[in-house]
């Protein structure tokens, strides 16, 4: 049995990698993948905690999160596709007009 500490540690590392990816990568699709990574880090933490406490309720929440992340991915991909069709560009730095 793996201790909960390890699970949380892996989850944290995964989350940080995802966050760094969103912050630094310029490719929109990679950024989207990084967001998924952050979500999965959260899921992993929830599953670990569920096993640790012997409580299945957290795993129900996990199912919801997976569903939401699927929906979010589809919306995100659709946005990227539309943006690409308009401007032929998926570099996030290109899309910086939404500001003051």
């Amino acid at each position, binding site marked *: 049995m793996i201790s909960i500490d390890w699970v949380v540690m892996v989850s944290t590392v995964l989350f940080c990698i995802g966050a760094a990816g*969103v*912050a630094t990568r310029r490719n929109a699709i990679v950024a989207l993948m990084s967001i998924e990574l952050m979500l999965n880090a959260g899921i992993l933490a929830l599953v670990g905690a569920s096993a640790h406490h012997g409580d299945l309720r957290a795993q129900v929440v996990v199912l919801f999160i997976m569903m939401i992340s699927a929906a979010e991915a589809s919306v995100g991909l659709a946005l990227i596709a539309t943006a690409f069709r308009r401007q032929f560009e998926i570099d*996030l*730095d290109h*899309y910086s007009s939404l500001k*003051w």
Partner: protein
Amino acid sequence: MLKYSPLITILSPLIGWLILTLFRSSISRRVAGVISSAAVAISCITVGLSANTILGGHPIDINLFNWISIPAMTLSLGLTLDKLSLLMGVMITGVGLLVHIYSIGYMAHDDNGTRYFSYLNLFIFFMLLLVMSDSMIGTFMGWEGVGLCSYLLIGFWNHNQLYLKAAVKAFVMNRIGDVGFVIAMAILAFQYGTLSYSELIHHLTVAPMSALALLTVGIGIVVALCGKSAQFPLYTWLPDAMAGPTPVSALIHAATMVTSGIYLVNRLHIIFDLSHPAQQLLLILGLLTLMIGGITATFQNDLKKILAYSTVSQLGFMVTALGLGWYQVALFHMLTHAFFKALLFLSAGNIIHGLDGEQDIKNMGGVRKLLPVTTLMMGIGTLSLIGLPPLSGFFSKDAILAAALAKSPIIFGILVLGAALTSFYMSRLIGYVFLGTYRGSVSHPHEGSVSMTGSLIVLGALSIAGGIFKTVFDLPETHHIEILLICLSLGIISTFGTVGIWWARRTVALQPSVRVIVGIDAVYDRFVVAPYLYFSRVIMNAVDRGLNHTVMNVGTVTRWVASGVVQIHTGNIGTYVILMILGIIALFLKVVAH
């Protein structure tokens, strides 16, 4: 039914106004004229029906509601129909109805006729509120309302900048009078905790205020009267108010609104009975006004302005009667004046209408052949105004002269001089307009429509027979000097009438070489308007600019701060994510620190 007659009387024109305002675009001006006339006719009938009861000594009171109820005072709104308000009500609705009917013909070609009739109805409502309210506060609401309607109707032809200026002038001059009204109300309310007329009169009889307070209230009311009833030194708005349509001049600026000051003094005459100096003030102002109005009228060449100055002068006669302590005499003259001055104005309206808007009497002449009915009516009005026995004007002026003779021969002399001036300027007007040959440019002058001529004839009959209302009033005994007064009137009329016509004959061909400037306006410009403008400029430079700078600087600083902060708002997703994560970490640290 009779119990509610004040309510019906007052609401009927208000409903007329509401209908005409709400459906302004879908009602033609002819229908609007009929609706508004019907509304006033209902008021006229309800007032007339309750006349018997009231003259029998049973005033009708309706208490509507308590408006303000605090420990220091109670203000209730109610309506009352007693002898005084009945008289005013009959005059307002009667003359009002005739003017409404006349206006149907007069405004037949004006595109904004519906708006005009809605204002007229609103005016009748406020005027009735003024005279039928049972407290000063209700009267004050009516007082303000008629001022508003007067403003709206003077500036009715609002495409003309001069007319708008006249409207604003009338409005501002009236506000000066209102200050007096408010001061009088405030003192009375502070002293007695009520503004109801009956309670005020009761309190004043039982426990009068100090002489100084009474004088202050009296002066306040006199100032209010000077504004509304065009007395010296606030009368200058009235001649300018002739910019409005002529029926408006007849109704508002001759017959009804300008007499509200006379009404107010009659309501609260106990104050002037108690305060002798206030009464003296009324007397002096009245005498001054009647002379100034009469003298100025002799130099005017505008048909309506002559009549306007004549109104100022006649109001001076009424105020003189008030100052002599004969309040009922002033009311009697007010009633007959309403008849013959409305008649004169409406006849003048006929002439102006017939001559396509010509108002300069130098360009008229020989109108008697062109407009015979109007000529007859104007003649009746003139004879009544100059006091030919036994027309209505004779009886009322006669009563004022008799009251003055009993008091002092000097006042009597001034009044006779005023009457002589009246004969002179009116016969000069007749000589210019009706005698001689036609000098105008309009090729085919025409009489007005049936509604116009009909109203004139009714008013003409009232001007002839108005003397029969004599019995309603409490007038000085004149039997012993009756012959003297009749001879005096006939003497004045024949002498000065002839002089006036002779003068008209002599001067008709001359261009006016001297432009008579009415000094009082120049005085206002010099001592009120100019200092006011100077003061405004000082305020603008010192205070307004300073405030402006402060406000502008607040903006500048905000922009400067924002221009720094805005740098982190890059539009780049990566930056936002980093900032968000930093924020979350900061939050966590905060939680952990606790």
